[in-house]
């Protein structure tokens, strides 16, 4: 019995010291799941890069339902994790609830809008990246009709669609942009069957380039586009490798860079708002060995020109979220 007691005491001591040593950062993946080949996977890649370079460790959780948001956030804060990086707009209200209770913990809110002294809010200029994708789509399209498939119908996704439509119209003012949203609930991030069906409907309306900004749903969109012999555009992560030679490009949102930087800064990270735009390489289009055959020199030139114009401020891409309207596309 005494042996048992001392064993348990030792175990408890180990547990305590482990708890004390725990100032590891934490990463909360959103409902799409860690390996969605898109938004969350980009965060994972950024975190892994940090692990490889520094040998550090981080805590992580994949959310399975909305109810877990606050619980997960509080648990990490209680365990002393710092900073706590959260993925997705949906964490904003949770952070607004939780962050004031842990003033010494730094929170990172990617894609959100939480405005608190211990929160770093990172947003991306998705409309600018999507604009470049739109330029490429319009150049690649033979039919003059291109399309967009969004995941859940939220302002952020409309921002993608609006930037894309503006890019398309900048090259070909007469082009038709067909736009569909998969749904209005978080299920819309994970319904590849519906994504396929939407892609088929758009292809039958004449679209020959489909841009999917829809998380896991996009997997179905890209698959269908490849099956039907039209081009597709991936999102967030570089998705060119999913169907080599069939994916025109990917609108990359450098979530990996944002996560990597946050982990590198650790507890010293600067709070406040950060906007990663085209000039900061926060967004961009991916060109690699899987799609270089599809990208002509003219396309590259127009993308470069558009990019330079946006960075220089000669072209201002309208941001849907600024006034909830889009000049190039009606929803």
């Amino acid at each position: 019995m005494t042996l048992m007691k001392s064993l348990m005491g030792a175990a408890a001591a180990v547990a305590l010291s482990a708890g004390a040593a725990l100032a590891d950062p934490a990463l909360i993946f959103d409902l799409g799941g860690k390996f969605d080949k898109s938004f969350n996977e980009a965060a994972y890649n950024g975190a892994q890069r940090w692990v490889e370079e520094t040998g550090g460790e981080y805590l992580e959780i994949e959310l399975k339902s909305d109810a877990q948001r606050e619980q997960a956030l509080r648990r990490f804060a209680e365990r002393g994790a710092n900073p706590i990086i959260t993925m997705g707009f949906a964490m904003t209200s949770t952070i607004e609830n939780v962050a004031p209770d842990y003033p010494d913990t730094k929170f990172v809110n990617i894609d959100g809008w939480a405005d608190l002294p211990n929160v770093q809010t990172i947003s991306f200029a998705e409309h600018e990246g999507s604009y470049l994708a739109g330029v490429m789509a319009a150049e690649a399209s033979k039919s003059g009709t291109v399309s967009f498939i969004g995941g859940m119908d939220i302002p952020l996704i409309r921002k993608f669609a609006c930037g894309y439509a503006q890019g398309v119209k900048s090259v070909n003012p007469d082009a038709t942009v067909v736009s569909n949203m998969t749904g209005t609930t978080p299920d819309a991030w994970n319904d590849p069957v519906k994504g396929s069906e939407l892609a088929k409907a758009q292809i039958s309306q004449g679209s020959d380039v489909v841009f999917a900004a829809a998380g896991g749903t996009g997997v179905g969109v890209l698959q269908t586009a490849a099956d039907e012999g039209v081009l597709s555009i991936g999102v967030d992560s570089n998705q060119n490798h999913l169907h080599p030679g069939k994916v025109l490009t990917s609108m990359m949102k450098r979530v990996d860079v944002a996560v990597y930087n946050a982990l590198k800064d650790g507890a010293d990270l600067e709070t406040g708002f950060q906007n990663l735009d085209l000039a900061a390489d926060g967004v961009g289009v991916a060109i690699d060995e899987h799609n270089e055959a599809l990208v002509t020199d003219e396309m590259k030139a127009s993308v470069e020109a558009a990019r330079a114009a946006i960075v220089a401020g000669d072209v201002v891409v309208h941001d849907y979220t600024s006034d909830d309207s889009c000049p190039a596309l009606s929803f």
Partner: protein
Amino acid sequence: MDFLTLIQVLDSTMRMATPLLLACLAGLFSERAGIFDIGLEGKMLMAAFFSAAVAAATGNVWLGLLSGVASSLVLSGLHGLASITFRGNQLISGVALNFLASGLTVLIAESWFRQGGRTPSLLTDGRFNGIELPFAIGPADAAAADRPLNELIKEAGPIQQLYSELISGHSILVYVALLFVPLTWWVLFRTRFGLRLRAVGENPAAVDTAGVSVQGLRFAAVGICGLLCGIAGAYLATGLQAGFVREMTSGRGYIALAALIFAKWRPWHALGACLLFGLLQAIALRFQSIQFGGFTIPVQVMDALPYILTVVILAGFVGKAIPPRAGGQPYVKER
């Protein structure tokens, strides 16, 4: 809306309705025998995963279909064991199966393929590809003419459009699902087995008095339910898609249950209900908002319509939906 658009929407309807129809008929067998089955969703999900996993590993879609059906049958067996043999609550057993499938598929997928709870994308042999019926315009013609398939179909006459777009070009499971409707009707209403199966859902004591095993019949019904759910799941993962993604059934099992109530537990009506629900989905996918005499109907209304219709039916506005009388009650031989 021109003729071709209409045909395309109907074509999409067929694809959306097929998994609903298979799951609905599965539920029909089970519930007609007095076993409520809320676990259609879980069985489809499990079958979707195993069919995709085996098809990805072996490159043979038929082996995939077989293992999908087998996995769905295992879940059916569990449901039967809990609710028939041990007389547990059928609804709770069904819910448990849904959660089991939801978690287990991702867990096994992660440990087998390490791709975050999905299977690798299936190549051509690992999928049920569309069947081109004779004289239909298909991808082969498009390749020969070196032009997009859509243009070729657009130029064809209306009959050819109807034939090529709507009737031809589906995977074999779509035709199989349609054949199951008359087959179900025949089995239930024209065979001795069907008569007994229906009787066991209405008055199991009478069947027992006649010397027929209530448990045996109920297990047979639950088994058929598993078979059909297995085909539905395999169609989702290897027919409509090229691989499994977590939660890929996304509520289709529940819509199938709604369709079953809407059809008042009858096979031909089930076909009608599933086609209607499929049509609503197809319209919602094709048109984001519909202008209707000055009003704009938002897409959310179309998404909600199957459930609204079911509530209307259940409330008894359009005839009464009366479930099998012994449904949900475990059979106790003697008190």
